């Protein structure tokens, strides 16, 4: 997997977080994982189609999710309900869309499949046996992950 993929998602996540929740996420250490899975509490899966094909997974701890939605709405949140999960899914969708716009500058034309939200651990798909790249992002309200599994489809 190429460095452009990671950089595009990192930059998009940084911009959207700064704009929407006034938080500047910092990169943690990248690592390869055997297949796309995560045990954090709220997971948003985005499908990518086009010149690149694959899956992007955004994974957030519960308290961070609630804190983000609280910052967005100005309201206290005590559980990840439909309102909170939908806001989280849309934020991930915006990050994904912006990342694909950045990737288009590297001549990859792709589209996003609408997000799917999983509350609770995200189990790997049996067909996704390839190695994925996990990018941890550190913020004052918690650590979240973007897992990237993309293949060239040209």
């Amino acid at each position, binding site marked *: 997997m190429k460095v452009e993929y990671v950089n595009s998602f990192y930059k998009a996540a940084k911009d959207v977080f700064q704009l929407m929740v006034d938080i500047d996420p910092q990169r943690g250490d990248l690592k390869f994982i055997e297949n796309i899975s995560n045990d954090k509490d709220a997971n948003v899966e985005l499908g990518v189609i086009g010149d690149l094909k694959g899956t992007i997974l955004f994974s957030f701890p519960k308290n961070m999710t609630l804190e983000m939605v609280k910052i967005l*709405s100005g*309201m206290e949140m005590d559980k990840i309900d439909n*309102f909170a999960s*939908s806001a989280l899914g849309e934020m991930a969708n915006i990050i994904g869309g912006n990342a694909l716009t950045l990737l288009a500058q590297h001549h990859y034309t792709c589209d996003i499949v609408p997000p799917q939200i999983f509350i609770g651990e995200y189990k790997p798909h049996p067909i996704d046996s390839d190695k994925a790249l996990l990018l941890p992002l550190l913020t004052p309200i918690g650590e979240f992950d973007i897992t990237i599994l993309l293949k060239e489809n040209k």
Partner: protein
Amino acid sequence: MMWKDKYKIGVELIDEQHEELFRRVSEFTKIIRSEEDWNSRIDKVKETMDFMKDYVIDHFNEEEAYQAKINYPEIEIHKKAHASFKEGVDNYIKIFEEEGFNEDRIQEFGGKLMTWLIMHVGNMDQKIGEYVKSKGGQI
């Protein structure tokens, strides 16, 4: 409070309308997230949605008229963004007409609406303000 001063673009009419839009979406969010029985809130939910739908359309029209007046170079891109925002709202209205005002669906819509609004005003609309400033202030 959903509204933040950093969302201001420096054009009074548009800023006032944005603040009103945020106030309405905040109010809508409070109603749909209240602990009271859903049936006792449903009329208020419908009423707020009707108002908001009209207000969003009026605001977008006025904002586009302003952009045309100042020869805003990104007007066509902005119009497309407005159209896709309206389409998103319309899709949910269609779902509510077909499926009824289901609480889970309304919560889902509320989460998206808030995110769309913040992203649109906090990002795309800021570029109008930057253009006005680049032309030396209020046009």
